[in-house]
């Protein structure tokens, strides 16, 4: 195995193996949590072969090999850089989740509590209740005929009905004035 350092990376952090077509980054587990390393590695498995290792306590080694076989120094350097960026993104995302965990739990608890309260509210009337309900009772006065159906209100009147309506004092709708 012939490892070489990568331009722009400290020797202890990244090394490439041109024969194997791979690059290995050694990550400080104190800086980047394991979940962040998993997240970044998982994002890369569609384009790289990824292998994780723990060379020493407190560090994680990530070996990336391009699936298309890009093995020149520039390609490996680019790969290492993209992984390092993704690792930082994942670590930052992890930190945001940790900081907002209390808020997330609070919102979830309130949503669940609201759903539970609705479930505990009095139930709607059953079919038996509706069957025994007295609908004959006059609920309210309706002098303008608002509660009347269209057919009932505008049906063709017989001459007798028309004459009796003309004799009675008419109730005029406001828009007709």
């Amino acid at each position: 195995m012939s490892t070489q350092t990568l331009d722009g990376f400290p020797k202890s952090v990244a090394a490439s193996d041109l024969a194997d077509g791979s690059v290995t980054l050694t990550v400080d587990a104190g800086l980047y949590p394991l979940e962040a390393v998993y997240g970044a590695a998982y994002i890369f498995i569609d384009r790289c072969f990824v292998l994780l290792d723990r060379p020493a306590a407190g560090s994680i080694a990530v070996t990336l090999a391009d699936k298309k076989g890009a093995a020149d120094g520039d390609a490996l350097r680019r790969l290492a850089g993209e992984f390092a960026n993704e690792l930082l993104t994942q670590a930052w995302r992890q930190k945001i989740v940790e900081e907002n965990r209390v808020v997330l739990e609070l919102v979830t608890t309130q949503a669940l509590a609201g759903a539970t309260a609705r479930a505990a509210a009095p139930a709607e009337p059953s079919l038996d209740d509706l069957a025994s309900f007295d609908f004959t009772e006059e609920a309210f006065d309706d002098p303008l005929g608002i509660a009347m159906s269209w057919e009932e209100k505008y049906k063709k009147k017989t001459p007798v009905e028309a004459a009796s309506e003309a004799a009675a004092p008419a109730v005029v709708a406001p828009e007709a004035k």
Partner: protein
Amino acid sequence: MIERRFHRELYPPAAVDGALKVFERFATFELADEGDYRVVRISAKRPERELKVARELGNYALGLTRQGGLS
């Protein structure tokens, strides 16, 4: 023969076993426990195939670790 070493703290045994089950028809595997590692030795008809299976096995085990909440 190619060897792949999966650290127990990074790859749960269930993830490695699951990956081995998927790839068992493509190569022959020998499994051994060596300290903190589960070591998989891969044999196939051609060296290129061994390398390919070894690399795909690593990806699959990582995928199971991440997706299955095994970590």
